[in-house]
């Protein structure tokens, strides 16, 4: 059983998920990502698109224990067991939730403040369509 984001709904966010296109508020200039109807800071609905660098730092993280993932990620857990999820504070300001990849899911190896960058990876499969999107990997690892 899965929570449902339809293929058209998913396609509508391809710019964000693959290319990290954010909404810069024309009135207070803060960057909103993922996109919102109204600005997080000032409530304005007037935006222009900007592309994010994909670089940021780990703000906080967790390791999702075996068998505990949302059902959409059962395949992933069957393959990798526990995995790390973090809130990344992007260098342009906004925060995003994403999985960490290309690193050990070990709380001693992941640190708050660690530099990471976005990469495109397989997230999950629904309606026989593989959903891709960003995950983050430590910059030190290359």
């Amino acid at each position: 059983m899965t929570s449902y984001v339809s293929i058209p709904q998913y396609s509508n966010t391809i710019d964000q998920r693959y290319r990290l296109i954010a909404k810069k508020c024309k009135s207070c200039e803060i960057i909103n990502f993922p996109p919102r109807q109204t600005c997080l800071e000032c409530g304005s609905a007037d935006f222009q698109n900007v592309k994010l660098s994909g670089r940021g730092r780990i703000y906080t993280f967790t390791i999702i224990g075996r068998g505990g993932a949302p059902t959409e990620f059962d395949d992933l857990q069957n393959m990798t067991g526990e995995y790390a999820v973090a809130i990344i504070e992007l260098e342009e300001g906004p925060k995003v939730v994403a999985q960490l990849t290309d690193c050990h899911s070990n709380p001693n190896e992941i640190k708050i403040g660690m530099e990471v960058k976005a990469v495109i990876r397989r997230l999950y499969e629904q309606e026989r369509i593989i959903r891709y999107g960003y995950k983050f990997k430590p910059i030190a690892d290359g």
Partner: protein
Amino acid sequence: MFYEAFQSAINDVDGSIDPKEIKEAWIGSLKTGGAQLGNLAPLLIEQVGLAGMPACSIENACSSSAYAFRYAYMAIKSGICDITLAGGVEKMNDLPRERNRYWLGVSGDVEWERLAGTNFPGVYAMMALRYMHEHGMKRERLAEVAVKNHKNGARNPDAQFRSEISLERALRAPMLAYPLTVFDSCPITDGAAVAILCRGDLASKYTDTPIRVIGSGAASDYLAIHDRKDLTTVAAAQKAADEAYKQAGVKPKEVDLAEVHDCFTIAEIMAYENCGFAGKGKGGELIKNGETEIGGKIPVNAGGGLKSKGHPIGATGVSQIYEVVKQLKGEAREKTRQVKGAEIGLTHSVGGSGGSACVHIFRR
């Protein structure tokens, strides 16, 4: 289950009440079973023999029935009804594991949070880790919350888990979502709760010890945690508590006991701060010094909390109110749990990871 809670509420009225005197009902549920998704409240009301009465389902995640209580209270305040019913119900145990995992994840942001692979424990775990990072709190403080709530729940006949746990055991338990272990988390629970509310000037007809609602505060926040500026607090709960205190005209230090939403141990620590029992970043000291134990300065979750009493999502808000009302009447089930001389009590309910919150203050 709802029928049992309803009968027990009717029987609990000190005088006597004809169920037909109740004019309207609000019932909280996340409807996790998915068996009756629409029009649940009319079905439940019909099953307790009150078909025809206006009844409305309230869904605000884990704070559903706290909100049901708020609307039942507002209906009386507005002058439209003299007597109302607030309840909640959830049936979770007969679901397959994957269906529970599905339902438990739908109360946060789905599109960008859950579908990035995080679950509910994960969201609170990230809040806990950030809290520990910013305020230098040790994991022992979280485990101490679990130990205290199990100790209280062990003496509550209504609790799901009636056994104490040691600090050692809580700390060594398997990780659910680092840094939270299975003992930092509330369980999967079946449960129902019902409260009957009555206009203040009519209450003496039904009881000699009426408990008055003196404050009702509610607030919401950004659903997705990445949109929140500060992850070491629940801003909606802070606002709801501030509003409830303002209405009640009382200060946090005047509160004699509180039932707070400890879906995860870190949530109880943040609740101490949001309810004004501790300063920002100081919640850990309260548990360390035993001030929230029964007999301490401000007993919290004398009923065992969600942690030990259980967390039947839609029923939890009213079940907290039940515990506080019984305590204020001096009728805590099992006398060793009674907070002596309690006059003012508070309930604190949080929906999801803090997207909604509702706080009530009661006075004997």
